[in-house]
């Protein structure tokens, strides 16, 4: 049921992306010397300032900015659907991005229908202020995937490894390895604690919150780094204990 639902969302998103990309091709034909919609340069050119004195220029640049964002989310949806251990978070992420794709596509149509430079500029600004795809949606999606990988994959597997190593150390009475094994367990706990509740927090963030605080993601990012380092340490501890068990 869930797979079917995701497939339907994926197809819908693909169709939307196809429409937008198709529109981008037409827009490029109208605009000489246009830059790639995927490049940061093109994106910078489509900043809220949405430079350009003519209405068609503003509309074309807005369209390119929307196309780049839709394409980015399309790629990300595929990666999210392939990521392990996401569960319901994956469904939420895909739904959120599909909603953004739909919203951006509608905004693109609105901008194309604008008849004044002022209206087109005001609507083009919404690409950024109302969506924050690059600043918030993409990074927070990536961070949810990472946080769930910490909790649902790495910490789980390391805990299983620690249990097996503990059984072997106890069985053979290798008390000298116990402190290393205890450190491994502590590092797993630290990684789990650093990412506790992170995914639900990230999934709840809105463009309005980012508009008010551009450092909205900083603490979660730092906690992910902490968790990653702790997992690395736990893995090193495990390797040390394994080597000791094999040599004695």
């Amino acid at each position, binding site marked *: 049921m869930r797979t079917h639902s995701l497939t339907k969302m994926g197809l819908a998103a693909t169709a939307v992306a196809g429409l937008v990309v198709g529109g981008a091709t037409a827009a490029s034909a109208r605009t000489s010397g246009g830059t790639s919609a995927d490049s940061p340069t093109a994106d910078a050119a489509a900043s809220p300032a949405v430079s350009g004195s003519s209405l068609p220029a503003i509309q074309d640049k807005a369209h390119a900015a929307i196309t780049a964002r839709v394409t980015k989310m399309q790629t990300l949806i595929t990666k999210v659907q392939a990521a392990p251990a996401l569960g319901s978070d994956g469904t939420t992420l895909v739904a959120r991005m599909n909603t953004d794709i739909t919203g951006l596509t509608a905004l693109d149509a609105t901008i194309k229908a604008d008849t004044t430079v002022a209206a087109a500029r005001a609507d083009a600004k919404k690409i950024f202020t109302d969506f924050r795809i*690059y600043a918030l949606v*993409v990074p927070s999606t990536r961070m949810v995937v990472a946080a769930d990988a910490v909790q649902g994959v790495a910490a789980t597997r390391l805990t299983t490894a620690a249990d097996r190593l503990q059984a072997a150390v106890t069985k053979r009475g290798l008390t000298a390895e116990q402190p290393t094994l205890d450190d491994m367990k502590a590092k797993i706990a630290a990684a789990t604690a650093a990412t506790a509740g992170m995914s639900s927090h990230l999934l709840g963030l809105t463009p309005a919150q980012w508009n008010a605080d551009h450092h909205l993601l900083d603490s979660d990012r730092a906690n992910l780094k902490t968790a990653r380092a702790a997992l690395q340490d736990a893995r090193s501890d495990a*390797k040390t204990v394994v080597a000791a068990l094999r040599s004695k």
Partner: protein
Amino acid sequence: MPSTVATAAGVTPRATSGRSSFRRRGALGLAATAFAALLLAGCGGSGRAPAAAVPAQQAPVTVTSSPAAPADDASLASVDASLDSVDQTLNQIDANLADADQSRATSDDG
């Protein structure tokens, strides 16, 4: 009954009949065959020395703390597989963080 009798000084061994001697040799042959069969059964075709040749006090003892114990090897191999999987997950976490940073840097305007 033995075919020959231990002699003491000055005692002449009694003669035994040929038929009786034949029966005793037959019985000994059967006993030797049975013993050989028992030895072969003890080997179990493993090519090892017959278990019956080892005194009970020196029978092999399983050393559970041996580093080469198969159960431990299997458990450690499983741990190795888990750690390899963790390596892959750490790489995925790195890739996700890198893409998040790149996206944030792509446009100051979001």
